[in-house]
């Protein structure tokens, strides 16, 4: 399969899976088998692109010129490759988890759930492989729309209100700011193609660059920069697999991925770092990191706490991008990977606790380590990885990010990163500690784990946290190629 076919196939496969999933709604086993097959095939196709990308090639596919000069086109560059790998790879894991979760928790309308899940993955891959800002924007919006039915899955009053916040913030930021920034860029540069070194150098004054960066940074509501972060906690009414894959990995990472792409390929890091045009963004990100962590500490609902933790962690990546140097880009994109593994583990655990013990509040979770030792052990690993303690993956990305702040002489930012790690310890670690060491307050005795289909995925991703620390080289090698020339 040639590169361009592989790109199109990987985006089309989840879409092709949708009607089959919908048609087999009568037989859940069949339906989920199809879902798994689609996930595995998609991942396989994405992986098939890896060798050529590692060799420095950038396979491309052109679909159609929507308006002269604005095309729907794809090109795989290293950053997109890594995002696509994570999204499609973790889709397999999440599908397995979702089977256990949805059945164990007796959710309704499971078919609709799986259909729109596949839709969302396809959109995430479209974002990953977008060759230009226009294509990226299209799939960005498709991602918002395709996840709306997932967020509002329960069709309750609460879900409807959450859906309003979700659509309201994501739509208004993307239409009000991102689209405006995009049209403006097009008007200034005459193109929206992602190009190494950016397309705006010499085309816009410093003031306009700052405004444009603002439009992109706040317009990408999915990156959950404050004050446009409210949608993420609201989206937590969705079933846990959605929170796990979409609102810890695919959707939010699509947001920070967009900011990364914009900084690297539209502005160019040289343009931004030269005159310190993105310093203000560093401070906004730093503010979000700290406030996100502080709010997380006040939340007793486990998913809400994880959501605010995600808001805070996403801003690490934005901060990395805003530093606009090579180390910042490396650290930020590394954090896309490491945070994905850490946070999906934590969400899987939260869901597993819900399925097995029907608990959502942290204060009720004392002593549950005795009933759910595997789950809580994985939770511990995930927490340590998020905090950034070796030997877990998060340590790498935090290391690079701190190095990048020092290189950029942003010592305040370095301080914020260190302080945030401390806050992470304070809001994450008590959960496993109380689970293992406090006296149990619940009535279940002995082992009471979630179904195997739930536990295996979370153990798998926890192991991933460890492995990524020990063998970071493949990821690092790929990420070091970011920003390289496109053929």
């Amino acid at each position: 399969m040639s590169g361009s076919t592989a790109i199109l196939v990987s985006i089309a496969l989840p879409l092709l899976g949708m009607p089959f999933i919908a048609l087999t709604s009568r037989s859940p086993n069949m339906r989920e088998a199809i879902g798994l097959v689609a996930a595995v095939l998609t991942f396989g196709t994405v992986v098939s692109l890896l060798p050529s990308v590692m060799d420095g090639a950038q396979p491309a596919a052109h679909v159609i010129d929507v308006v002269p000069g604005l095309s729907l086109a794809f090109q795989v560059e290293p950053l997109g490759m890594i995002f696509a790998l994570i999204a499609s790879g973790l889709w397999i894991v999440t599908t397995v988890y979702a089977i256990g979760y949805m059945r164990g928790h007796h959710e309704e309308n499971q078919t609709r759930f799986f259909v729109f899940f596949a839709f969302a993955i396809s959109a995430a891959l479209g974002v990953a492989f977008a060759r230009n800002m226009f294509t990226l924007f299209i799939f960005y919006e498709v991602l918002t729309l395709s996840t709306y039915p997932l967020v509002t899955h329960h069709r309750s009053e609460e879900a409807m209100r959450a859906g309003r916040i979700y659509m309201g913030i994501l739509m208004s930021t993307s239409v009000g700011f991102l689209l405006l920034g995009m049209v403006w860029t097009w008007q200034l540069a005459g193109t929206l193609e992602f190009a190494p070194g950016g397309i705006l150098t010499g085309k816009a004054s410093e003031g306009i660059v700052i405004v444009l960066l603002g439009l992109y940074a706040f317009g990408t509501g999915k990156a959950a920069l404050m004050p446009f972060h409210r949608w993420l906690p609201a989206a937590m009414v969705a079933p846990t697999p959605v929170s796990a894959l979409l609102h810890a990995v695919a959707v939010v990472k699509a947001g920070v991925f967009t900011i990364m792409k914009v900084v690297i390929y539209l502005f160019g890091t040289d343009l931004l770092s030269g005159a310190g045009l993105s310093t203000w963004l560093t401070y906004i990100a730093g503010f979000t990191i700290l406030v996100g962590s502080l709010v997380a500490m006040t939340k007793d609902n486990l998913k809400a706490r994880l959501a605010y933790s995600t808001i805070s962690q996403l801003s690490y990546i934005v901060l990395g991008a805003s530093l606009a140097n090579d180390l910042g880009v490396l650290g930020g994109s590394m954090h896309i990977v490491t945070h994905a593994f850490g946070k999906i583990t934590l969400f899987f655990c939260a869901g597993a606790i819900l399925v097995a013990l029907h608990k959502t509040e942290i204060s009720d979770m004392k002593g549950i380590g005795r009933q759910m030792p595997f789950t809580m052990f994985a939770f511990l690993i995930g927490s340590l990885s998020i905090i950034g303690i070796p030997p877990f993956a998060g340590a790498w990305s935090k290391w690079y990010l701190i190095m990048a702040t020092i290189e950029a002489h942003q010592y305040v930012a370095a301080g914020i990163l260190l302080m945030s790690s401390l806050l992470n310890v304070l809001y994450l670690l008590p959960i496993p500690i109380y689970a293992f060491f406090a006296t149990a307050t619940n009535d279940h005795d002995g082992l009471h784990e979630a179904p195997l289909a739930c536990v295996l995925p979370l153990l798998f991703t926890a192991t991933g946290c460890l492995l990524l620390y020990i063998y970071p080289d493949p990821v690092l090698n790929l990420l070091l190629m970011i920003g390289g020339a496109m053929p």
Partner: protein
Amino acid sequence: MIDMHLPILLIVVPLVSAPLCVLLRQKTLVWAFASLVCVASLGMASMLLIRVLEEGVISYAIGGWIAPWGIEYRVDTINAFVLLLVSIIAAVLMFFALPSVADEISGKQHYLFYTAYLLCFTGLMGIAITGDAFNVFVFLEISSLSSYTLIALGRDRRALTASYQYLIMGTLGATFIVIGIGLMYMMTGTLNMFDLSERLPAMFETRTAMVAFAFLTVGMLIKLAMFPMHMWLPNAYCYAPSLVTAFLAATATKVSIYVFLRFTFTVWGTEFVFEKLNLDAFLIPLSLIGIYVASLSAIYQTNVKRLLAYSSVAQIGYMMLGIGFVSVTGLTGGIVHLFNHALMKAALFLSVGSAVLRLGSSDLADWKGLGRRMPVTMAAFVLAGLSLIGVPLTVGFISKWYLILAALEAGWWPIALLALLSSLLAVIYVWRVVEVAYFQKADDDSNVQEAPLMMQISMWILTGATLYFGIQTDLTVSVAQRAAGLLLGVTP
């Protein structure tokens, strides 16, 4: 032979067919005949557009009387495009017509309904094709009179008052236009548009020119329902039969906008209208206010048809905004939106019409749980609604792209921002319907069937078109660009 006489056939065929409907009388027969006429017109309109794109302007002298003495039909890119639009909508709606008319119009009146429908169609086509200023008025009245009757056929008695209201406003508007045309004739001694455009510049300094233009403009703005002269529109759209609402929403205001373009750009010229009289300084703020006021009104409506009607007023604001930029990009945006909005609004009104057929009501309160009861219809509604919002991969996005680009090209970024933020109001009013249909449980358990196949065909052709032309813009954008260049006198 036929090729030569295409412009006149396009008018004569539906015009002669209309009274034939009265002779046929039998319900299905009349429907089949009217459909045939519409499809034939669509074929002729497409041939005409192709010929215009290949050969340039086509001039047809009726009865061999050469302009400026005789009436000339003059077809260039822009009116060929409008002719195509009107005939597409008329033809596609005929599928929908069979079950919808059977449901909403009493059996004895079917042949009269189709007669009026064809007359209205003739009038709209005539307005678009003619090159004679007075002829515009005549066709305008043909289409208006038949649309008053069509609206009055609505089942609710308020349809009668809505129609009456429209009659008063419409006649006032048309008469204003006649005054303007009369004064133009007084100054130049000609009614041929092309001739007028050559003779008027000599009169630009006179007060008569300004008065003529003022009457003409006000008249046209009433007809195209520009805010604040839109009061007739919401009631008319709300109480008319479903088919009529869809047809008028997609064509009548669009043709009026074409008339506005033709008179301001071709006949009077940008120099007089925009440089001397600064119409844009009036058009742009009014469009923006209209967009906001109408969108906000749409949000508070409890009837889906009326909600969409207010949305139409807002969307007309977008078209006029694009025209107000007086640039190739802006006009392209306005003209593309004219086409695109016709597609999506027709699709939306058709899905509402399907729901009305099954539920007997377009009150939002009765739409609870419709997402489960009529999934196919609601899916079309959501897709066309997304297009209204301007989500990428739909036609709405293409229009929005050009409008924003035009604002930025002119250096008016606050207008770009305002126009973008206004589309969030569209999110709110579309989502209100979505939330009721998908999140609320139906009050009763009665079984509601999906709409009949014929209705779904029309609905999905148009919904499909909103998606297709959102990706494949070769036809729409390039034709609109040519038309914009033509209107501004620059060859792209």
